[in-house]
């Protein structure tokens, strides 16, 4: 694919993603705002993939690799922490039966 074609393709999916993002969460109850914020927070941890690519590719100098590795550390904390915190919040939302008093 030529560079120009790739770029227009990327811009196309970017714009579609904007609409998708609005659409998917347009009717969230207030109750779930916090877990949703935390969940999207975990999702942008995908930046880890970028950090891995930059840190891992050959043909580069030491400084690039070091900065890349620091990015890997930060992004991994984002991914793991993000999903675990969200899970801990959502654990609380289990539907619970009302305890009936013994009669």
């Amino acid at each position, binding site marked *: 694919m030529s560079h120009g074609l790739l770029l227009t393709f990327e811009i196309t999916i*970017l714009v579609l993603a904007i609409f998708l993002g609005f659409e998917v969460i347009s009717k969230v109850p207030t109750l779930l*705002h916090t877990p949703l914020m935390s969940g*999207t*927070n975990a999702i*942008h941890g995908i930046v880890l993939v*970028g950090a891995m690519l930059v840190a891992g590719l050959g043909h580069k100098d030491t400084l690039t690799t070091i900065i890349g590795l620091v990015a890997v550390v930060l*992004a991994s904390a984002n991914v793991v922490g993000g999903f675990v915190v969200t899970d801990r919040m959502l654990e609380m939302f289990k539907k619970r039966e009302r305890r009936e008093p013994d009669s």
Partner: protein
Amino acid sequence: MSRDVTNLLYLITIVTFILALRFLSHPTTARRGNWIGAAGMLLAIVVTFTQHAIVSYWEIGAGMAVGGTFGAVAARKVHMTAMPQMVALFNGVGGGAAALISLAEFHNLTPRPGTLTTDISLAIMLSAIIGAISFAGSMIAFAKLQELIRGRPIVYPLQQPANAVLFASVLAAGIAIASGAEQQWLIWALVGGAAAFGVLFVLPIGGADMPVVISLLNAFTGLATAATGFELENNVLIVSGMLVGASGTLLTVLMGRAMNRSVANVLFSAFGQLAPATAGAAAAGATDGQVRSASAEDVAVMLAYAHKVVFVPGYGMAVAQAQHDVRALADLLESRGVEVSYAIHPVAGRMPGHMNVLLAEANVPYPQLKEMDDANSEFPRTDVALVIGANDVVNPDARNNSGSPIYGMPILNVDEAQQVVVLKRSMNPGFAGIDNPLFLNPKTVMLFGDAKASVEQLTHSVKSA
């Protein structure tokens, strides 16, 4: 693995993220949604590892182990009450990663002139600027919520013009680089300047507004991630980052709406700063009553012989970890035939839905949790409204005093109940830093002390009442 296969597998990851967001929008499926998203993330990481272009496996693996362990331990150890600052922290490191990737990529490409096309270098500038702002801003939000620095707005003369100038210089540096000035020092200055802007931008915002700020910075990190995707020509980063950017922006607007304020008002008004002036006006206008404090025994009798008691929890309950004790007190009252419910303000606590999470943790059945409108229609026939560490969300100034900074915010009308009991640590104003005439209302009595200790005493005294 060929590039096509890689991209198709990345597409699966994208689909899992979309499903995760969909499922997160309903309480019954939310947890499953989060797991689906995590599985998709794992897939993307494994796929990235198998790319033959990657050479330094061990270093990357070690880096992931360090970051992942920190994330897991921090996320597991933290108390439910400290969740908001954890979200801020993890958001910040994500933004920091995006900024660092840009630095590394720029450093890697510039020695070979001509390799850096304008669109790539524009993407590098954007992700460096947005990522650095998100990193520094999130760290300040974290510090404010963790009370490492003052939660009150920090303001000084010419603050906003100075911030605007700083931001304009950062943008100018970005444009210079993108149009060909490929100087290493310039991008370091740009990242430093953007980080400084992030700090200065969040400092004047009051602690009570931090949830909205975190949500906004979350959207920023999403945008930085999408820009990183352009820089590395990677679809999964572009789509996932933009999904978060778009949904985070909408979420920020929805949160602002729940407080009846625009996002611009949250960001630029240094909310709560006018406190002393309006407090004086409020005290003069509304009541010049006195604060009456009561003992736990007095309040216990009031509760034990009531027909209907409504609990109004706030951040004070969260910080004292009193939710289990509150539940115990509610159970005890119910066993005496008192009708009990909980009135939940949408922004009580430091995050929307904060109270629901805590009370659910304490096994409070959710039919007893009343949302604001339902709760407000019940207050006139409520005997005792027991306010546990809530302040701004029950402040009648929001209804009556047009000079108050929170004027117009929908509140819980606890002052319509027959009697109001406020559990509070001291007479300090709430997080937004404004006085509350409810405390001077003749219907109100105060029970001072830590929320957990006070509720325990109440339970003890109700038993013997």
